[in-house]
């Protein structure tokens, strides 16, 4: 019985429930929320955050963080625009951008695992550096003339539904992330690393290699997101996706991923992403000013760090007091 009690107050469940409540309320009471166009905007605008949140969740569970994701996405978009202007085929450019993301992740990962630097510091540094390189690459140009079938894919919807076409690939990546974190030995080792790195090492887990791999995956996913961003908004600029890292981190923490590592679920993170996305959408529909939206997001971030801890305290207290 205590186990079901614990589950009842699990934070990711709370966030999932909040998301459902918000959606129901919005469908019922917010004008313009339920139409297909708005929903497709909501999902399309949230997808970049959701994509990066997947590897970010793995990284935070393993006790690390990457704040350079938005800059990597921006750099990827800038390089994409530059190479397109140079006349390279888009089919060549996209793999190159992904490789660039791998390289960005590799730099972060090597600095963290080989030099033993804290990832927070390293990726604040590369956050600035990658963005700087993006500006050097593309200057203040905006590249918009990508091939239309790519633009159509990134902005289009599935048939007459409200689902963006890019939602299907996201679902595939989501499934991969869920299985990876929650059903494979690799996922188990991430929890062990996050909750007790030394004990993980003593159990034969290759901690450094695992972390390096996560940074690389995060870099690649960020670059992919950069490509998607440039196509979705039909604009490659050096400042694409600026500030996106805060949304990603806020959503992941809101989803109950413990900032100290060792705790969290992909489901929680995705619920956090869409809760944040839906909230912003609703606030825009209700004409809440941009400044107020930022305040709400900030408050949510604080709540999301506190919430899981409070939930855990409650469940511990209930477990202790259930028969006593």
């Amino acid at each position, binding site marked *: 019985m205590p186990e079901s009690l614990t589950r009842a107050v699990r934070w990711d469940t709370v966030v999932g429930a909040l998301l459902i409540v918000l959606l129901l309320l919005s469908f019922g009471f917010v004008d313009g929320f339920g139409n297909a166009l708005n929903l497709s905007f909501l999902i399309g605008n949230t997808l970049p955050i959701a994509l990066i949140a997947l590897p970010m969740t793995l990284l935070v569970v393993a006790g690390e963080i990457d704040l350079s994701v938005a800059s990597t996405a921006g750099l990827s978009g800038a390089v994409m625009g530059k190479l397109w202007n140079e006349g390279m085929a888009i089919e060549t450019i996209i793999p190159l951008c992904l490789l660039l993301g791998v390289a960005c992740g590799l730099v972060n990962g090597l600095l963290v695992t080989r030099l033993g630097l804290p990832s927070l510091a390293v990726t604040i540094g590369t956050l600035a550096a990658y963005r700087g390189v993006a500006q050097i690459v593309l200057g203040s140009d905006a590249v918009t003339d990508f091939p239309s079938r790519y633009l159509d894919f990134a902005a289009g919807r599935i048939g007459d539904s409200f689902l963006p076409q890019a939602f299907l690939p996201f679902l595939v990546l989501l499934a991969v992330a869920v299985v990876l974190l929650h059903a*494979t030995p690799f996922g*188990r080792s991430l929890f062990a690393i996050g*909750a007790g790195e030394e*004990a993980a090492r*003593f159990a*034969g*887990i290759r901690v450094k290699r695992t972390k390096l791999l996560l940074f690389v995956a995060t870099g690649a996913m960020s670059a992919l997101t950069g490509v998607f961003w440039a196509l979705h908004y039909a604009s490659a600029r050096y400042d694409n996706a600026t500030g996106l890292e805060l949304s990603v981190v806020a959503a992941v923490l809101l989803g109950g991923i413990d900032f100290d590592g060792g705790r969290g679920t992909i489901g929680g993170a995705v619920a956090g992403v869409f809760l944040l996305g839906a909230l912003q959408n609703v606030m825009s529909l209700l004409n809440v000013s941009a400044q107020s939206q930022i305040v709400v997001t900030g408050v949510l971030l604080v709540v999301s760090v506190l919430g899981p801890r409070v939930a855990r305290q409650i469940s511990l207290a209930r477990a202790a007091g*259930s028969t*006593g």
Partner: protein
Amino acid sequence: MTHPPDTGPAPVLALKGVSKSFGAVRALRDVSLELLPGEVHALAGENGAGKSTLIKTLAGVHRPDAGQVLLDGEPVVFHGPGDARDAGIAVIYQEPTLFPDLSIAENIFMGRRPRRALGRIDHKATHAATAALMRRLGVDLDPGRPARGLSIADQQIVEIAKALSFDARVLIMDEPTAALTGSEVARLFGVVRTLREQGAAVLFISHRLEEIFEICQQVTTLRDGAWIAGEPLAGMSEDDLVRRMVGRDLAELYPKQEVRAGEVALSVRRLTREGVFTDVSFEVRRGEIVGLAGLVGAGRTEVARAVFGVDRRDAGEVEVGGRRLANGAPSAAMAAGLALVPEDRRAQGLVMDMSIERNIGLTGLRTTSRAGLVNRTAERSRSLDWAVRLQVKYARIADAVSTLSGGNQQKVVLAKWLATGPRVLIVDEPTRGIDVGTKAEVHRLLGELAADGVAVLMISSDLPEILGMADRVLVMHEGRITAEIPRADATEETVMAAATGRATA
């Protein structure tokens, strides 16, 4: 024997018929205890007997479900540790937590330092008050010295001084000697005697029976949460005390089996890690228990780490079952059949926040998974199987290992490694900080493993353990193996002589 004669001094602090439950676990049942001024009172019991709960009840962390806490004979209710502290009760833990960047004096008077005019902190007064406390304890520690770099022993002294600065009349010492060297223990005992003479009541917890007999006058024994006895120590033997703690005669603390050694299972040749240990060579055969003795800092643990691969070696080779191990690769060592039960179970042996099930499962992720996916059923049955075999006492297998007592945590570490079916088992301080009953179980287990053909390398600072269990004793001194002593010739004298560099064989 539960009541002192009426003529004696009145108890400062007492428990009367106290019970406390956590969920289904009855941690304390009808326990009584009286702490008298000028007396050191031992609290004896195995891990999980309820000692921690009793301490926390006295310290105001827990409130009893039934029974009373009496202060100077009057019932009191502590609403938190602050209440207990204000009542003059101080707890000194095994590993104190001081602010490393503050001085000793600042640590002691944290948050309530003497002030001068305009609210400025009076450094001179703080310093002088600290010096006075140190004099009272008969200890020579510079009040201005930062806490960083103080030994655990010195940190405990600072905690005791802090307790005195709160005018503590009752001092509860929870395994204060577990991490101390012999001379540090002697100094601590000097301090305890001083406090006793000054009229303090001391509650002392230790797994080392000889320490209880050395420093205490009275002993209360708990077993499975129940009060077993409260009596003077005078006239008792160690065996008497063990019988009360364990509830039976302990068959044998060192159940050594005679096993014929088989082929070489672990071969270490010219292993060197620069500045740590040099040219270390030895072999362990199937069925053998080889003891690795030496002083703390001689390089024993470091050798084990390099053999297992958590640290890289600079030179030399390690072979397990004839397979040469890659450098710095614990996973390769595990694949070859090597297992290491590390020295620090809380940081290295276990992921404390993870469940018992998953901690044991951690070493079997590859073997129990199917098609790249974790097989939860197989994982659970493997973990349950080993937890039961080693008689781990737990409520639910899904509970975090942090909820277990130290001895049971150590059993989980052993379970985690035995579940890999090792060919070679290295155990580093396998019984440190665990109670005498569990200790005997661990020894029996190591004996059985050797009988089954496992090669065991046992690092221990507990000489009787080495002498009692090992077929051969390797002794390290300053990073080198200085002696190899067969069981027949191994005595405290021969081992200590080699460990201190006075003799080489």
